[in-house]
């Protein structure tokens, strides 16, 4: 056979269960409430499960760049004032939601085919409660930390 690499095993011999990833709901919620960093945590956990961290690690960099860039604009360039003036007192919170959803969109571009694969073959995702909550808390704390570091 020409394609000998097709005959190399792809599954870990110590893994008995189906490979599945955390659901889109978990990813969406983590990104919506935990911002881009929360969304990236779930995305990278999924990449680890798919054994493609070597390909997907830039997702973490993108999340960090979106978060730092937006917070820089808010804290150092008067972005917070602009958001409050134009979107009301909850403007900065809305900005976090928008960033989170943008991050989710990017993650979906990378992992959409795996979600569709799971859906078509009826594969059940693992419970996303613990990692989802951890991602939301971690993402929020990280954002607060970055904002404090950027504060003049």
């Amino acid at each position, binding site marked *: *056979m020409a394609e000998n690499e097709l*005959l190399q095993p792809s*599954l870990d011999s110590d893994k008995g269960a*189906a490979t599945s990833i955390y659901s889109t709901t978990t990813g969406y919620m983590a990104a919506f409430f935990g911002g881009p960093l929360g969304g990236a945590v779930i995305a990278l956990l999924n990449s680890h499960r798919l054994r493609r961290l070597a390909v997907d690690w830039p997702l973490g960099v993108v999340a960090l760049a979106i978060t730092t860039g937006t917070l820089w604009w808010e804290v150092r360039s008067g972005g917070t004032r602009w958001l409050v003036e134009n979107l009301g007192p909850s403007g900065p919170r809305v900005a976090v939601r928008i960033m989170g959803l943008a991050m989710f969109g990017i993650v979906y571009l990378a992992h959409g085919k795996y979600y569709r694969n799971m859906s*078509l*073959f009826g594969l059940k995702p693992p419970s996303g409660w613990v990692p989802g909550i951890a991602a939301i808390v971690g993402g929020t704390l990280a954002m607060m930390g970055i904002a404090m570091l950027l504060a003049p």
Partner: protein
Amino acid sequence: MNESSGSKPDLASVLHEAHALVERRRYAQARSVVARGLSHFPDDSELQYLGAFVDYAEDRHAQAMQSIRRVLAQNPQHYGARMLCAHLHDEAQEFPQAEQLWIELLREYPEDPDCYAAYAELMLKTLNLDKAERLAREGLRHAPEHHGCLFVATMIDLIRGGGSRQRRSENLERLLREHPEHVRSSIALAVALNERGEHGNALRVAQELVRNQPDSEHLVTFARELKLRNHWSMLPLYPMLRWGWGGAAFVTLGGIFALRAARGVLPESVVVMLGFVWLAYVIYSWTWPAILRKLL
């Protein structure tokens, strides 16, 4: 088997009869023929294999595995027994063991499209999409109209979604044209219709499939999901159903911005009321599908 009950039957004719019954899916009769054969030829590996196959076909997987281990202990190179063993590992979600067997079989039978199709499907079940695609392509190279390989190729086209529409429908059309009688062709058709947003047509195909295979849990779940999408109470959730998470994000952000914009134009009381309506809609979109899924 036409011999009298006392005399020893001819092994070849017993095997022939059992094979014929298995091919016609008359498993109860096949079981009885195999049992009678084994009473005369208890060590015959082909009879033991046929017994295991009947057990597998009738969902007695533990018994099938026991029998197949006996066959493989006697005849480790038995092609059918190794294939059946791989399928049994697959059913038991022992995927690495199944993979090992498919690889061994493909090393010995590098042109066998059945092995390519089965291994490709295993790769799809374990989210190894690229490898599944290459295996299906390799299988189709050896047998361009092979049903299993065409099925996997069609499913991959549907999963990828982003490929050209022509290529996507090409594999599906070939599958339906060459194998219209196969249940899996109908499954692929229903999935394709669903992906194109033709939920009503997809539901009709899926319901027909469930009528033919009422025991298939996967088909029942699929038909139930389609029924849910077609339910009248899901109409307000059309953006989410049609455009998935993109639709959900649009509705969420659209609602936030529309309410902000309304603040400067409409009286505060109206804006507050609209805010509650939007909130109710969001809650409805998150909770109602789950409730309806339980009700249907």
